[in-house]
């Protein structure tokens, strides 16, 4: 036995710290080798004018000041915010409720779970093409269906006002991943708590409200933080759908810049306009924004997230 006989408290804490760093070491190593270099490089680029083919030219804060005066920066930021404000809460609640439903001990529940999981398994290219077709006003299947209900469907991806709702619907279809995480969390709720609740005579709703919900706050927290980070960096789906647009469709970010998400505009600056320095500036500004929101959520987590195995004094 090594540790328990040591009298000095300092040593114990030091030992614990060393163990901590030892376990974290793989990540730290990888961070140093693969991540920190490119990250710092992009930070450097944000203070330069860099067109990739010639050397970066230092211009100080000029990119940042230009950014503030760039109408498209604000436009893309607002589109991203609006999408996040809708898709994030909807996605979180929707996937949680489905996970609760799928957590029942019903015959064949495995098959149902697989069905709900299926959409998130399909390759992005296929999903985008599929939904482009489904949503298409002229040659799709959604609008004829709506017509049968007497509703005239909008242009969806070809209508600047309806492109984002279409994207939200598409993202809700693919929440399978979130559902799995919630399911894992729900599975991890100790059954003795439910037993105790039943003994006390709690209804299903009460069991949900006072056992399930609090005990799954760790995974809710996870999905919230990653959901935030993900929706702010929304890119791939829009890229696949609108990069097929010809000139008349407004190209990437169309129609009429209604899907010009922040990362799309960033991508264009980086790889189409040869403004890699400016793109790096955009990246770091987004970083600050997302970091800010994340820290807020972390700070708030003490009030609403419950961990059974949380260490004191953190």
């Amino acid at each position: 036995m090594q540790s328990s006989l040591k009298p000095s408290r300092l040593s114990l804490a030091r030992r614990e710290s060393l163990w901590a760093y030892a376990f974290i070491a793989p990540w730290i190593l990888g961070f140093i080798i693969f991540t920190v270099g490119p990250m710092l490089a992009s930070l450097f680029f944000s203070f330069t004018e860099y067109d990739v083919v010639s050397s970066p030219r230092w211009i100080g804060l000029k990119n940042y000041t230009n950014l503030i005066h760039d109408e498209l920066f604000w436009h893309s930021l607002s589109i991203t915010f609006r999408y996040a404000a809708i898709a994030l809460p909807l996605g979180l609640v929707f996937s949680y409720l489905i996970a609760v439903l799928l957590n029942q001990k019903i015959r064949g529940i495995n098959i149902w779970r697989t069905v709900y999981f299926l959409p998130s398994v399909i390759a992005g290219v296929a999903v985008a093409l599929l939904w482009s077709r489904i949503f298409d006003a002229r040659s799709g299947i959604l609008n004829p269906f709506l017509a049968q209900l007497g509703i005239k469907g909008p242009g969806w991806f070809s209508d600047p006002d309806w492109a984002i709702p279409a994207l939200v619907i598409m993202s809700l279809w693919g929440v399978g991943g979130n559902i799995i995480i919630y399911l894992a969390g729900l599975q991890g709720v100790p059954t003795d708590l439910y037993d105790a609740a039943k003994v006390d005579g709690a209804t299903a709703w009460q069991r949900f409200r006072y056992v399930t919900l609090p005990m799954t706050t760790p995974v809710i927290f996870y999905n919230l933080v990653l959901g935030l980070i993900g929706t702010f960096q929304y890119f791939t789906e829009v890229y696949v759908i609108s990069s097929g647009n010809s000139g008349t469709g407004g190209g990437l970010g169309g129609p009429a810049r209604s899907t010009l998400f922040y990362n799309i505009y960033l991508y264009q600056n980086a790889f189409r306009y040869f403004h890699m320095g400016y793109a790096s500036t955009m990246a770091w500004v987004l970083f600050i924004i997302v970091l800010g929101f994340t820290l807020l959520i972390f700070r708030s987590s003490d009030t609403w997230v419950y961990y059974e195995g949380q260490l004191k004094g953190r």
Partner: protein
Amino acid sequence: MTHPTMTPMRFNASGIRGQSFLLKGIATLIIAAGAAIIMIPFLFMLSTSVKDHAQLRQSPPPLIPEAITTVEINGQEEPLYQVNIDGQITEMALVKNRPGGKGLFVDPARPDETHELVIADQTALTHLEVHWENYPEALRQMKFNKLLLNTLLVTFVGMAGMLFSCSLVAYGFSRFRAPWLNVLFILLLSTIMLPSQVRLLPTYVLFNKLGWVDTLLPLIVPQFFANAYDVFLLRQFFMTIPLELDDAAKIDGASPLQTLMYVILPQARPALISVAIFHFLYAWNDFYEPLIYLHSPEHWTLAVGLQTFNALYAVNTNYIMAASAVMILPPIILYFLAQRIFTQGVVFTGVKG
């Protein structure tokens, strides 16, 4: 640490059983309805995968693959309609369009006799036409077998590396106190807050200098050094496991590593399964990084190969759907199998201490 409080209330114990049956019934109904809606796009995907280009053009596209029935008249294939002439219903072919939405129809048995009728009043005839050959053709064109090997290698070796490294790192972040640990955790998360587009070129330069471009290494090796998503998830799970278990192990003389392996990880099985599945999915479908690092088609993964159908002038939607349909099989089978371990997972009986 506060337990969720259970305020004693008055409940009707016998009504619970009835309630529970009803609730399960309602739940099943909702699940089934939702599943039906979810499946519609998927069915549409399957239907698209067995159509040929002519069938793809139909709008709106039928869920069941149909094709327009044609008949040969004077050496040309003409579409067949069910026409109504003075109350008599026969089948005729449309041979020529006339002004005003009318067309010339002929009875195939008497091709010289033409009738001019309004096209919109007639019904085009269709028949079931399923092109199963799209599947072998799509797989052949994208060189499925070779790419499958690459993809399996990347996926499974990466998964092993990820499970290994992320378990260690998550354990470090959740079960210990150390100076700057919180800061390091935020740093870990911050690595995914920076849009990857701006790291792409410097990372490519790095891998190029290592000589790893056009190999599978950039996709595999970094997995052995943990990543924010999986560490974060595992950390959340580890933090739901009561500390009493750790303490019990320590009293039994276990080192932290042993505690991890014999106490924590078994408890966290649902989480481990989840991250394994996620990693599988990610590696299986990811094309963003492989597209940059893999030059020769022999090294491509399946997701990259799928892009070959998305060419500039010819989007072969049917082949894309066919190939994608085949590609979803391994993840789905894996998920289905994993379910067993998933639900067997944690039946925690509790430690009173």
